[in-house]
C-alpha cells in the first residue's frame, strides 16, 4: 500500500477546505472601478490621514519670491520654499550659502516654475524658476527642496518669458519682459528702437556642481517677450515665445503696445544657435557671447500672430504650437512641420529687425474661436492631446480639440484665470487627471480678511465632463504652476555625513572655538537638546568674543533622525539659521554690539527644546 496517498490527499483536502473558507472570489478590481466612478466630489479630494496625495503642485509665489508646494487632489498646502526672498522660518538669506545666493536683494518676483526634463518628461530632479523683479534664475534641488544656485542675468530686465527647459534640460531659456540697453546703461527712451534690446539668455545647469551658467545670449529686438515653450520630439531642437509691443512703444503701453494687428511668435532653433556660438558667430559684450540676429544670421524666425498673444504652448506630440490671443479672442494652431518646410523654401514675407518673417498662411493650421470666450491666455493638455485654455476675461476654462478646433467643454471659474496647470500637462505624456485654474481674483470665495483677498486655485476634474470640485485660497500670487506625479520625487530625510567637510563637527568632543586674530570660528554641534560649542569649556554652550570680532559659527545637527531640525538664533542680533538633520550650516557676522545675548534653538525639537539655550557674550572694547 502506498503510504503517500493518504498524506497527499489529506493535504489536498486541507487546501481545498481553506480555499473555500477564506478565498474571496468576488472580483475586487471591478468593485473599485465601480466605486471610483460614483465618488462624490468630496471623496475625490479627501485624502485620509495616513494616505498621501498623488501629485505635488509647485506654484510660483509671484512677488513673495517663494514657491508654494501643495498636494493634489487634496489641495493642502505642504510647504513654502523660499527662493528669491529671505525667510526667517528657514534661515534662508541668513546662513552663508543662501545669503550669498540672495546678495543684496530682499525680494523677488517668482514667475514661471519649470521641472527638469528627460526625454520631454519631468524627471523629478530639479525645479527652475525666474525672478521678474530682479532678473535672476534659480535652481532648486528636489532631494531637499532647497535652492542650490541663483544666477543674475545681465543685459536683461525681468525674465518673465521663462523658465522653460529643452527636453533633456540641456538649456533653460530666459527671454526678457522689459527691453533695456545692453549692460542696462543709461540711454534716452527717444533712442529706444536703436539702443534697447530684448535679450534672451541660454542658461545651463551643471547637475554635478549645482551651478547655473549663461552659455550665450541673443540680442532680440526691443520688444516684450511674454511666454514660451520648448519643442518636443520632432520639434525638440526648437522653441517658441510670444512677443508684444512690437510697436516699440515707450510710454502708455496699455494703448500704444496694443495698436498693431499682429505681433510675433519668435521661433528659434537652439541647436543652430549653439553651433553659431561654437563657430564664433557672436560678439563679446559685457563678458557675454551675444548673438545679434541682424548680423549673425540664421536660427531665428518670426511668425505673425494675432495681436498681443500671451501663452504659446507646444502640443504633447511636438507637432503643433498654439498661441493664445489675449486681445484677439482666438487661439491659433501652427504646424512645426510646415514651419520647417517654409524655412527650407525661404517662404518669407519680408523681415523685421533683420529677422525673416515666415508667411502666416503657409504654417497656420487653424484659428479657433470658441463662442464668447474672451482673453485666451494659456493652454495645457490632457492624455488624449485635448487642449484646455484659460479665458481671463470670460473667466472660464475651455476644452477644445487642436486637430479640429471643435469646442468640447467649458467650465466657469472664480475668477479671471491666468495660467492653468494640468497634471504633467506640458510634457510629452500628460496624465489627463486634474487641471488647476490659477485665478487672479477670489472675490467672496473665502472668509473675508479685509480688502485684500487671497488668490484662488480651483481644482477641476477633467477625467469626464469638466467640473470644479475644490477651491483653495493661496498667498499672492501664483502665476504658473507645475504638477508632477508624487512618486517621481525622491527626497532625502537626513543629510549624509560628509567626512570631507572641514566645517562639520560630528563628534561631541571635537566641538571647539578657534581664534585667528579677530576672527572667531565656532565648530559647534546642535543636538537634542543642547548646543556644544566648546566641548572642553566650563560651559560648553557659551560663545564669548570681543566686540568687533568677525564670528563664524559652523553648526552641525548631529541628530541623524527624520524631522529633527534645530534652529539657532542670537537675541537682538537679527539672525537665525536652521540646521536640518545631519546638515552643517554656517552663519557669519560681526559682533558689533557689546553685551550679553542669549542664544537659543528656534526650531522646536524635543521636550527639552525650551532648555536648548546658551549665551553669546561680547566683551566691550576697553
Amino acid at each position, binding site marked *: 500500500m502506498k503510504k503517500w496517498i493518504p498524506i497527499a490527499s489529506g493535504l489536498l483536502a486541507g487546501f481545498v477546505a481553506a480555499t473555500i473558507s477564506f478565498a474571496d472570489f468576488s472580483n475586487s478590481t471591478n468593485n473599485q472601478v465601480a466605486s471610483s466612478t460614483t465618488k462624490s466630489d468630496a471623496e475625490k479630494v479627501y485624502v485620509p490621514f495616513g494616505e498621501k496625495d498623488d501629485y505635488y503642485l509647485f506654484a510660483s509665489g509671484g512677488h513673495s519670491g517663494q514657491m508654494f508646494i501643495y498636494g493634489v487632489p487634496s489641495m493642502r498646502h505642504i510647504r513654502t520654499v523660499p527662493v528669491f526672498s529671505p525667510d526667517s522660518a528657514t534661515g534662508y538669506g541668513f546662513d552663508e550659502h543662501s545669503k550669498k545666493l540672495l546678495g543684496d536683494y530682499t525680494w523677488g518676483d517668482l514667475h514661471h516654475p519649470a521641472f527638469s526634463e528627460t526625454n520631454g518628461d519631468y524627471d523629478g530632479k530639479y525645479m527652475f524658476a525666474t525672478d521678474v523683479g530682479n532678473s535672476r534664475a534659480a535652481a532648486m534641488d528636489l532631494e531637499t527642496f532647497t535652492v542650490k544656485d541663483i544666477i543674475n542675468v545681465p543685459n536683461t530686465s525681468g525674465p518673465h518669458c521663462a523658465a522653460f527647459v529643452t527636453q533633456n534640460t540641456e538649456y533653460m531659456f530666459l527671454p526678457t519682459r522689459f527691453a533695456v540697453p545692453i549692460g542696462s546703461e543709461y540711454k534716452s527712451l527717444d533712442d529706444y528702437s536703436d539702443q534697447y534690446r530684448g535679450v534672451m539668455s541660454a542658461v545651463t545647469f551643471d547637475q554635478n556642481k549645482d551651478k547655473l551658467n549663461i552659455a550665450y545670449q541673443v540680442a532680440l529686438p526691443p520688444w516684450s517677450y511674454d511666454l514660451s515653450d520648448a519643442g518636443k520630439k520632432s520639434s525638440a531642437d526648437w522653441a517658441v515665445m510670444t512677443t508684444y509691443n512690437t510697436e516699440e512703444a515707450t510710454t502708455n503701453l496699455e494703448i500704444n503696445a496694443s495698436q498693431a494687428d499682429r505681433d510675433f511668435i519668435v521661433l528659434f532653433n537652439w541647436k543652430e544657435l549653439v553651433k553659431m556660438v561654437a563657430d564664433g558667430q557672436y560678439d563679446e559684450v559685457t563678458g557675454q557671447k551675444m548673438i545679434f540676429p541682424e548680423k549673425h544670421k540664421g536660427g531665428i524666425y518670426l511668425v505673425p500672430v494675432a495681436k498681443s498673444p500671451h501663452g504659446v504652448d507646444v502640443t504633447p506630440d511636438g507637432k503643433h504650437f498654439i498661441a493664445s490671443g489675449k486681445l484677439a479672442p482666438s487661439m491659433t494652431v501652427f504646424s512645426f512641420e510646415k514651419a520647417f518646410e517654409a524655412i527650407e523654401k525661404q517662404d518669407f514675407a519680408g523681415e523685421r529687425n533683420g529677422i525673416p518673417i515666415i508667411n502666416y498662411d503657409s504654417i497656420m493650421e487653424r484659428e479657433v474661436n470658441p463662442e464668447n470666450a474672451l482673453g485666451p491666455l494659456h493652454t495645457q493638455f490632457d492624455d488624449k492631446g485635448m487642449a484646455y485654455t484659460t479665458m481671463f476675461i470670460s473667466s472660464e476654462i475651455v476644452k477644445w480639440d487642436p486637430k479640429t478646433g471643435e469646442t468640447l467643454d467649458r467650465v466657469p471659474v472664480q475668477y479671471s484665470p491666468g495660467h492653468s496647470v494640468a497634471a504633467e500637462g506640458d510634457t510629452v505624456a500628460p496624465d489627463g487627471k486634474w487641471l488647476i485654474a490659477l485665478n487672479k481674483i477670489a472675490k467672496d470665495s473665502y472668509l473675508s480678511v479685509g480688502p485684500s483677498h487671497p488668490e484662488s486655485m480651483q481644482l477641476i476634474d477633467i477625467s469626464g465632463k469638466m467640473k470644479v470640485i475644490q477651491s483653495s485660497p493661496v498667498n499672492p500670487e501664483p502665476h504658473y504652476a507645475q504638477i508632477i506625479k508624487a512618486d517621481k520625487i525622491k527626497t532625502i530625510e537626513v543629510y549624509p555625513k560628509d567626512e570631507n567637510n572641514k566645517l562639520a563637527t560630528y563628534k561631541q568632543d571635537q566641538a571647539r572655538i578657534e581664534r585667528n586674530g579677530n576672527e572667531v570660528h565656532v565648530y559647534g554641534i546642535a*543636538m*537634542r537638546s543642547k548646543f556644544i560649542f566648546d566641548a572642553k569649556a566650563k560651559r560648553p554652550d557659551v560663545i564669548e568674543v570681543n566686540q568687533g570680532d568677525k564670528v563664524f559659527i559652523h553648526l552641525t545637527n548631529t*541628530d*541623524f*533622525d527624520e524631522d529633527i531640525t534645530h534652529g539657532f538664533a542670537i537675541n537682538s542680533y537679527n539672525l537665525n539659521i536652521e540646521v536640518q538633520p545631519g546638515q552643517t550650516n554656517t552663519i557669519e557676522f560681526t559682533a558689533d554690539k557689546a553685551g550679553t545675548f542669549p542664544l537659543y534653538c528656534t526650531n522646536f525639537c*524635543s*521636550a*527639552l527644546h525650551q*532648555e536648548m539655550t546658551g549665551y553669546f557674550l561680547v566683551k566691550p572694547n576697553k
Partner: protein
Amino acid sequence: MKAKKLSLVSSLVITLAAVLVVLSLFFPWWQMIFFAPQYPEGLNIIVYPNKLEGEIDIVNGLNHYIGMENFSEENFPELAYLSYLVIGLAALTLLTAILRKKAVLYGLIGLFIIGGGLGVWDLTRALRKFGTNLSPTAPIKIDPFVPPLLGHNTVANFVTESVLGYGAYFLIAAFILLLIPLWKDRTR
C-alpha cells in the same frame, strides 16, 4: 562493552549543525525594537555576534533623557571575541561529526547548554545594567527597570519589543540537530 560508533546519518546531521553554527555568524542574534508615538516605524538595536546595528545613535540620543548609558560596541567587549568562540564551537561540532563518538556528542551538547546559558545570563546582565544604572542627573526621572529578554516592555512613551534574530534560531536548530543522533542511535 565497546561503544558503537554513531551512524553515518547522525554524522551528517551533526555536520549540518556545524554549518548552521557558522551560518549564525552572519545573522543577527537578538533585536530590540523601540516604538513610540513619533516613531511608529520603530527604532532598532540589532545585535550580531560581532557588532551592533540599527538606529543606535538615535536610541542613545533619546535614552539620555532618562539617563541611560550609551549603547556602543565599546560597551560590549563580548562582541570582540564572541565570533571566535562561535567558530570554535563550530569546529568542535565538526570534530564530533568526524569522531562519531557518543561521549564526545554528550560533551558537545553540554557545551551548547553551558554556552547558551552563559549567553542568556550575559544579555540579562547587560539589560539589567542599562536599565537600572540610570544617571541621577537625568532630566526625566523614571524607576529603574529591566527590559525582558523576549517580549514587550513599556518605559515612558516607549514600548520595546525584544525578539530573537535568525542567528539565534540557527543556533537553536543546530542544538536540536545534535539531539537527533541521541534518539536515532539509541541502544535498542
